[in-house]
């Protein structure tokens, strides 16, 4: 009980991080259902790596041009956040165009951006800690401004999916029939992948790569295991994601565990529990 009181009393410490984690978890869990159904579960991993390469590229360009503003992440000639989004956006167009070969495209993008990160990272003059916090975020403590970034990205993705849901579904399920029915396939593939890129890029920077990838896969698997309709799968996935984020944060706080790992472990435990529910229901 002592820990519980302590947790609530110190809400000013975790409030922003919790809000960001809940928004990111709900949004990524929803998008995860699409990624799992489309069998592109490595896309979030690749997008997170590509957006990291974008951050490093921004720092490097700033160094080369003598622009010191980039280290603060704002007001720079090339802001690392925008650069990350630009890189992730370009990668998402590449994945969408690859269609049937998207698995290969994902691996190529992941490997090349990982190599670029290691090769170019050594040339950056900024403090390694500054770069790491921009690259991989921190689920324990986030800046208040991240609520606005993650919230705006979630709102944008939500609106996009409200508008294009039926077209995304047709194109994802049966691209040939959608194309034959005059639904522009490539345009909708690109829009869908851009929504992945936006949410993953922003979330990785806010809460870290591990939770962002975990929320993109594990709650979606739970949703698809228990949901009997698309609506059901989305709802269960989002519920599993937000419970993992909220309870995971709480448990990590009271038991002094790594926060991102606690959230992902809880999402995994919910997935395992869903297997039991499915078996005995």
């Amino acid at each position, binding site marked *: 009980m002592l820990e519980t009181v302590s947790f609530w009393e110190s809400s000013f410490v975790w409030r922003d991080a919790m809000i960001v984690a809940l928004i990111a978890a709900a949004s990524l869990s929803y998008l995860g259902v699409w990624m799992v159904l489309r069998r592109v579960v490595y896309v979030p991993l690749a997008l997170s790596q590509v957006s990291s390469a974008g951050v490093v590229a921004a720092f490097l360009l700033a160094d080369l041009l003598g622009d010191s503003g980039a280290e603060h992440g704002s007001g720079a000639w090339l802001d690392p956040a925008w650069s990350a989004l630009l890189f992730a956006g370009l990668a998402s167009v590449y994945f969408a165009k690859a269609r049937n070969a998207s698995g290969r495209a994902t691996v190529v993008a992941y490997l090349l951006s990982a190599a670029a990160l290691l090769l170019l990272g050594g040339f950056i003059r900024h403090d390694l800690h500054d770069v790491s916090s921009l690259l991989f975020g921190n689920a324990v403590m986030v800046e208040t401004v991240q609520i606005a970034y993650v919230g705006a990205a979630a709102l944008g993705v939500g609106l996009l999916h409200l508008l294009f849901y039926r077209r995304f*579904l047709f194109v994802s*399920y049966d691209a040939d*029939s959608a194309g034959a029915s*005059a639904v522009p396939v490539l345009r909708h593939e690109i829009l869908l992948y851009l929504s992945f890129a936006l949410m993953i890029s922003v979330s990785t920077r806010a809460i870290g790569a591990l939770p962002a990838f975990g929320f993109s896969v594990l709650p979606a698997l739970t949703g698809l295991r228990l949901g009997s*309709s698309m609506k059901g799968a989305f709802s269960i996935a989002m519920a599993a994601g937000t419970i993992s984020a909220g309870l995971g944060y709480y448990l990590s706080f009271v038991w002094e565990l790594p926060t991102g790992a606690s959230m992902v472990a809880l999402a995994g435990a919910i997935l395992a529990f869903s297997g039991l529910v499915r078996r005995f229901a």
Partner: protein
Amino acid sequence: MNEKAWIELKDVSIGYERALLRPLDLTVRQGDFWGIVGPNGAGKTTLVKTVLGLLKTVSGEVRYPQGKPRFGYVPQRHLLNVNYPLSAADIVMMGRTDRIPLGRRPNAEDRRRVREEIERLGLTGIAGKRFGSLSGGQQQRALLARALVGDPDVLVLDEPTTGMDLPGETGILDFLENHHTCTGMTVLMIGHHIGSVVSVADHLCLIHKDADLFEAGPMSEMLTTERLTAAYGRPIEIDRHGRDVLVHAGEANHA
């Protein structure tokens, strides 16, 4: 032959970046029922995807003299991902996607058309069931309903009876024949079994990329032992009993 042409291919090379066959000609007129046959890997699906505009031609162009028709497409069933938690009715509603404005729900007309096609194809009792849990024949009828619910000008089917038992196959073919007779809809159907294709189609397209063979025309001209033998690379015999035609593999000549 007085009907207007819907689709014209003149000197068109089809393929994925490289031509599969010599340039081919094909004219599909309003009300035609084309059967497309050939051995596995002959280029049938490539031809159909080119006609639908899903694949670019290697050379030449596909022309639509009356403007691009509305297509209803029934793909090969086994290529679809059955893990999607979609009911048969959800699948059928997909066929109305391009008619539903962005961000809107299906209107009364969309729902009426879906109900109508579900009833017509005998799916009423199973419309709410998950698509992946249905039998092959039921899945095929749901996909056919999806293709028809968009009120297409041209219905295109890729091996609609593959993997089905005899009653299932006969049911689909009877439906297609009746639908074509009643509505005059133009149909292009890739057939796995030539016997089933010749029982419903009035035009036949023989294709075999390895033999660089492409022949197309009215059924009466195309249905000859010589042509079918050339297309399949083995003896094919044709038995005619009044209106019924039986096509079967003949004895291989080992002389």
